[in-house]
């Protein structure tokens, strides 16, 4: 009765109001989405425009075929830095991903409640430490230790170790988040089937959380590729394809950070090319994971 009364009393304004808020929300979302998209496009366009002068003068191919990276004297080989970026990222992700997932499993399914809570706080703390701090620690503690094993200490290995510690919390936190989203019925079902704890984790939890875990993998890979200061401080920055774990090397990000302050003309432009290369790697990464993960998430 009362609801009918209200409806007859205010039929139009309510409907209008509802429409308006919905519309408003829609338009705000469209606007924000457009802004985000435009920013990405603007970044790519800016990188392209800044890189254009040197690309026009020397062409793309010379960035892979030149004898060395000496932009001041007109050699622009980027391949050693591409390799450096891929090796240090790949190494760190290969170590951090399993450890991160296992530690999330530990705190979610095995650890007693009080321990899991503390463990989680600790991981969150680890995620919040600025990368420069890790880099500085690497430079004054880790590098001298490696130097005693095999000089000069600043090396691919140091980069991998520092990056692993940095991206580990990202992986753990995202993995935990995706475990939390698993429908409780799945776990109840597993329990009623009499599956052991590890059996549940292996056969129910991991397959169900796969898309979340993949997202975590991408996130940490993105962080590892983009990391600059820590890598700059511990990797040695020599432009070469590292021939062992103890060899120094340079990543694309470190290249930009090292040289931008003093780069002019073509040199500056060449640094934007290394930015473009970085962008290309990230785009490829996103496409690959999209193709790999998408069709089979919930089959």
């Amino acid at each position, binding site marked *: 009765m009362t609801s009918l009364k209200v409806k007859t009393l205010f039929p139009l304004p309510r409907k209008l109001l509802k429409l308006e808020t919905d519309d408003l929300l829609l338009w705000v979302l469209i606007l924000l989405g457009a802004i985000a998209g435009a920013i990405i496009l603007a970044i790519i366009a800016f990188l392209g425009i800044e890189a254009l002068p040197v690309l026009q003068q020397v062409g793309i191919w010379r960035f892979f075929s030149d004898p*060395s*990276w*000496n*932009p*001041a*004297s007109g050699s622009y080989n980027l391949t050693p830095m591409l390799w450096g970026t891929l090796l240090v990222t790949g190494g760190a992700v290969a170590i951090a991903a399993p450890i991160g997932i296992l530690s999330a499993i530990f705190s979610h399914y095995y650890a007693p409640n009080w321990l899991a809570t503390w463990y989680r706080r600790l991981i969150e703390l680890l995620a919040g430490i600025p990368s420069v701090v890790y880099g500085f620690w690497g*430079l*004054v503690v880790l*590098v*001298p230790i490696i*130097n005693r094993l095999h*000089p*000069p*200490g*600043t090396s691919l290995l140091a980069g991998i170790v520092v990056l692993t510690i940095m991206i580990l919390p990202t992986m753990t936190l995202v993995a935990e988040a995706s475990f939390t989203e698993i429908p409780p019925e799945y776990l109840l079902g597993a329990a009623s089937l009499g599956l052991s704890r590890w059996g549940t984790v292996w056969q129910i939890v991991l397959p169900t959380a796969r898309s979340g875990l993949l997202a975590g993998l991408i996130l940490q890979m993105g962080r590892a590729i983009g990391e600059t200061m820590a890598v*700059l*401080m511990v990797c*040695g*920055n*020599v*432009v070469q394809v590292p021939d062992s774990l103890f060899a*120094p090397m*340079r990543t694309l990000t470190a290249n930009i*950070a*090292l*040289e931008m*302050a*003093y*780069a*002019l003309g073509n*040199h500056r432009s060449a640094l934007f090319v290394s930015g473009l290369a970085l962008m290309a790697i990230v785009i490829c990464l996103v496409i690959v994971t999209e193709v790999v993960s998408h069709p089979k998430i919930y089959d």
Partner: protein
Amino acid sequence: MNRNLTFLVASIAAVSTLTACNSSNKQLTKLTLTGSSTVAPLASEMAKRFEAKHPGVRIDVQTGGSSRGIADAESGVADIGMVSRSLKPNETQKLQAFAIARDGISPIVNAKNPVNKLTNQQIVAIYQGKINNWQQVGGKDAPITVINKAEGRSTLELFLSYFKLENSQIKASVVIGDNQQGIKTVAGNPNAIAYVSIGAAESELKEGTPIKLLPINGVEANTKTVQNSTFPLSRPLMLVTKPAPSGLAKEFLDFAQSQQVYDLVESQNFVPLTPKVAQTRN
């Protein structure tokens, strides 16, 4: 209506005469500096302090290399050019130079390293990878970690030109960006050798960082030898003008050479010019 309009016109007139008075008091309210990317950060700091003391004055600092500084000062595009080297003979005839600081570069090693001096040939051989163990130059039996500067840094250019090296000849084990990074790396590695700005190394030494500055050609590497130009690996940082400076340009040049900016010079790891101040500091 009419009264309002008169009031408006009157106030506009008043304001414009006021601004006219202002601008006639200071003939020039804007200075443009272009040139060396080494001097530019120091010049911008000086400009900021100068602007704070002279309200209404704007100083525009643009980088582009020493040669641009010289070209722009000569053509009049810039009021003042910034140059991070000594002027060549044909340049000294056309331009007036005002040194604002000196920059010295010295090899550094870890304090634990027993090697106390290296000849120029030894330094060249170490950087070319021909000498790769400290034993060969009278030190311990340990491989040498060669630290080089990143491409484009002026410290690198000065080092290369003094030792007549090409960057592609250098076999580095570590490539660094700024002086601090080089000092930290040498402090953490007893077998490393690097070359850094003397000002930066001295300020780190005072804080107890375990590094050692090596002499070049037997000349001690410190602020005093850089100031009196006896240290071989150094260069002046200069501001240049074409006409004899007057007005605001002269005021700024005097300011840039005065003791009021020595703290800025030191904070950029350069060496101030008058020895008197350095003596009171040491």
